[in-house]
């Protein structure tokens, strides 16, 4: 193997510093959330305890953390499933030309780059002016989809750009109907990428703030609840909550990545039956 140039070590150090920059603050608040009862928002640590975590489970003076967590979780699942189904359908649709395809593509890009507060404001106004109630499961749900769907569809574009069409042609030559081709050939092949779409759908919804701000109605989602806490809570209980939600996010991400990794390995092991045929 070639000897590593000096630039490698410079860039590797830079990369290490970047990771520290990326994760350092999160690790810091994770440590500080174990402050003793007398501790404050910064170092030094005054003892070690679970005081602030147990505080989270007490009746809160402000807000409703566990209710908002349940709502965010439910909303995340709703958005995730919708994102996967709608993205796959749209991804399949975009493989052929259809009237308005270009316009639709530009709408997807607009949906991605439009300032979130515009969606929040517009959807909020639309619902209130037409006499509908804003609620996290209706207006909030739709607003979040405008953020998760573009990611899902861009992933589908990337997947289908690399898709080997000859598998489908083989299926069709063997007499599979359109639906059978999609169900037994296309979907199993793209399944690992759907895990990626689901990951984006859930996590982006679970952490979404700006698009939900004016569209969630009177029941807050978790990020809105946390935002409310930042203005009036000045104890490490904020860090404890942050540590818990970040830990939960890591758990979800780990689960998704684990599933993707396993399904890739299974495919590598069992996907090809080359050499196992009857001769």
């Amino acid at each position, binding site marked *: 193997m070639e000897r590593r*140039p000096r*630039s490698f070590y410079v*860039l*590797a150090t830079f*990369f290490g510093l*970047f990771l520290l920059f990326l994760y350092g*603050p*999160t690790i*810091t608040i994770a440590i500080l959330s174990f402050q003793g009862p007398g501790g404050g928002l*910064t*170092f030094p640590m005054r003892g070690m305890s679970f005081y602030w975590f147990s505080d989270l489970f007490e009746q809160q003076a402000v807000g409703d953390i566990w209710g908002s967590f349940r709502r965010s979780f439910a909303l995340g699942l709703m958005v995730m499933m919708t994102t996967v189904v709608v*993205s796959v*359908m*749209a991804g399949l*649709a*975009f493989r*052929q*030309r*259809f*009237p308005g395809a270009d316009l*639709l*593509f530009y*709408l*997807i*890009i*607009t*949906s991605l*780059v*439009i*300032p979130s*507060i*515009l*969606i929040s*404001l*517009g959807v909020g*106004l639309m619902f209130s*002016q037409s006499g509908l109630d804003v609620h996290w499961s209706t207006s909030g749900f739709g*607003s979040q989809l*405008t953020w998760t*769907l573009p990611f899902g*569809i*861009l992933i589908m574009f990337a997947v289908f750009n690399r898709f080997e069409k000859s598998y489908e*042609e083989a299926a069709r030559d063997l007499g599979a109907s359109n639906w059978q081709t999609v169900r037994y050939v296309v979907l199993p092949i793209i399944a690992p990428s759907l895990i990626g779409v689901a*990951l*984006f759908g859930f*996590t*982006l919804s*679970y*952490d979404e*703030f*700006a698009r939900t*701000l004016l569209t969630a109605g009177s029941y807050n989602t978790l*990020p809105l609840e*946390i*935002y409310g806490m*930042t203005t009036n809570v000045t104890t490490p209980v904020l860090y404890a909550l942050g540590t818990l*939600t*970040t830990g939960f*996010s890591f758990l979800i*991400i780990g689960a998704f990545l684990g599933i993707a990794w396993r399904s890739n390995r299974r495919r590598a092991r069992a996907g090809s039956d080359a050499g196992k045929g009857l001769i």
Partner: protein
Amino acid sequence: MTVSSKTGVPGISPGIKDVSRARAKLSGTTSTGFKSLLMASPLIAVLLFFLVLPIGMIVVVSFWQATEFSIIPAFVLENYEFLLGSDVTYRVFLNTLKYAVITWVCTLLIGFAVAYFLAFHVRSLTWQITLFLLCTIPFWTSNIIRMISWIPFLGRNGIANSTLISLGVIEEPVEWLLFSDFAVILAFVHLYTLFMIVPIFNTMMRIDHSLIEAARDAGASGAQILWNVIIPLSKPGIMIGTIFVLTLVMGDFITVRFMSGSQSANVGRLISNDVALLQYPSAAATAVVLLLTVLIVIGILLRFVDIRKEL
């Protein structure tokens, strides 16, 4: 169908069968077009109801009148007159632009270096994927928590100040770390560098390594290869990253509010302040101007890159 046309034996004149097949193919394309439209219809419905109609609503309301308690349908230009006639607007737009440009420069430099390291210096694919995932994981966690987590670093008695004091660089804690423009841009870079890394890394991974070898064989130095080969070939990724970073920063309101301690303003905060005061028409007018600005920027950038090709 494409298979049969490929395997068609040359020299045999097209028979009736082929003609009817061609006709079936023709009618087939219109029906697949319809089928595609049907498949895309859920997406179309979502975008219509939660993107197009809300934007329309904002445009309409931007011409309405507001009293202290309610908004009244009307067609007046006063919201725009007030907006465009006020010094504050220009200052705030300029400030927004300042955040966008500084953040763009920082994220581009960091993002390019990180992507370059991952794509050209990390040699095994497993490590590339692992390190790349390490860069992307924070994207799937909460932005607000990530902002909050800067408090123990930047606060008056925070880690940065106490380190600087113990090193003897400063004697008194500096006040401008948290709740300042510095903190705002630091948070932007922290949150959005990923949006540069991913597309640049994606284009860099497609660069044919033989091009680099060819350049080296032809006597190019490392810097020349970087400047004349890698950067031009990475341009599409840089453009996509630029689109992301500029629009995210220009449309932001929460980072600026939180990290500046409500001391600085950008356009997003202008809108959210109006909303808080229930001045929806004025918020809508600002939103329309912001949207136009963003779309013009994107329109210009999209001329340099074909997003669908780059995925």
